[in-house]
C-alpha cells in the first residue's frame, strides 16, 4: 500500500505520518523437508488513526483496505476533521452523526484478472466499513482517546486479535 506512489503522495501531502509497532508479529515457518522453507506472518492486523496535532484520535480505519477505499476514507476523514475546527464537541457530534448513517463501501472496479487477492481486500474493506467503523464511532462519540489508550480495546474487540494474549487467541483455535 505505502509503496504506491498515489497513496504515498496523498499521505505525505495531507498528514504527518508515523508508524508504531504494537507487538512483534507472529511468524510461521513451513519446512517442506527438501531444503525448501516458506515463512509467513500469522494473525497480523493493522489500524490507521487520524489524530489532531495534540495526538487525540479523531477517527480510525480498522484493518486492511483496498487502496481506492483507503484513500477515499482518508480523504473523507480529513475533510470532516477540517469542518470540526478541532473542537471537541464537534468531533463527538461527528461520531454520533456517523452512527445514524448506513455505511457502504464505495463501488470499486476490479481490473480483469485481479479478483483473487483484490477480491479479498474488497471483502475486508466492506467488513471494515460495515460493522467495524460503527463500533469505533460508538467508542469515539463517548470519550476522547489517544491511539495508545484505545489500542488494546480496538485490537481485542474490533480486530479480534488480543495483543495482551501472548498467543493472540490462537491457542484456542488449535
Amino acid at each position, binding site marked *: 500500500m*505505502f509503496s504506491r506512489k498515489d497513496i*504515498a503522495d496523498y*499521505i505525505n501531502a495531507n498528514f504527518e505520518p508515523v508508524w508504531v*509497532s504494537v507487538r*512483534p508479529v507472529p511468524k510461521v515457518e513451513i519446512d517442506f523437508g527438501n531444503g525448501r522453507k516458506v*515463512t509467513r506472518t500469522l494473525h*497480523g492486523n493493522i489500524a*490507521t*488513526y487520524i489524530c*489532531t496535532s495534540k495526538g487525540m484520535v479523531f477517527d480510525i480505519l480498522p484493518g486492511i483496505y483496498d487502496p481506492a477505499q483507503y484513500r477515499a476514507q482518508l480523504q473523507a476523514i480529513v475533510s470532516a476533521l477540517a469542518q470540526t475546527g478541532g473542537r471537541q464537541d464537534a468531533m463527538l457530534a461527528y461520531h454520533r452523526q456517523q452512527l445514524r448513517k448506513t455505511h457502504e463501501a464505495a463501488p470499486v472496479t476490479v481490473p480483469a484478472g485481479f479478483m483473487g487477492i483484490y477480491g479479498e481486500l474488497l471483502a475486508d474493506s466492506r467488513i471494515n466499513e460495515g460493522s467495524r467503523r460503527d463500533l469505533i464511532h460508538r467508542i469515539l462519540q463517548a470519550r476522547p482517546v489517544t491511539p495508545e489508550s484505545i489500542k488494546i480495546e480496538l485490537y481485542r474487540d474490533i480486530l479480534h486479535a488480543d495483543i495482551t494474549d501472548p498467543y493472540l487467541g490462537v491457542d484456542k483455535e488449535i
Partner: protein
Amino acid sequence: MGSSAFFPGIHMKLDSFFKAGFLALLFTSNPSLARDQKPINPADMSKMVIEQPVKTLLRERTMEVVPGKVSAGLVKWHADMKLATEAANRSGKPVMVFHLMGNLDDRFC
C-alpha cells in the same frame, strides 16, 4: 595502411593479423601480466565480453542488504509520535498513526 591502396582486400586481413599478434604478445610476453593474470584462453574471449560488465556492475552499483529489512514504502514517516505531533503543530496537518504488528521495515510484518 599503405598496402591497402594497392591490395584493398588485404587491409582488413592485415588489420586482424596485427591485432591478433598484438594480443598474443600482450598476453604471453608481458611479465607483469604473466604475474597477475592467468593466461586467457582465446575460447574464453566471448565469455569475457559478457561477464566483465556484469561483474563491474555488481561491484560498483549494488549495496549489501541487511537481512530481513525492506523499505517502509514511499511515505515520509516520522520516527515517533512526539516528532509527528510537533510537525503537525507547525504544518497544521493531522497526524496519521499506523499501528501494526511487527515493524513496517521488516520483511515480514
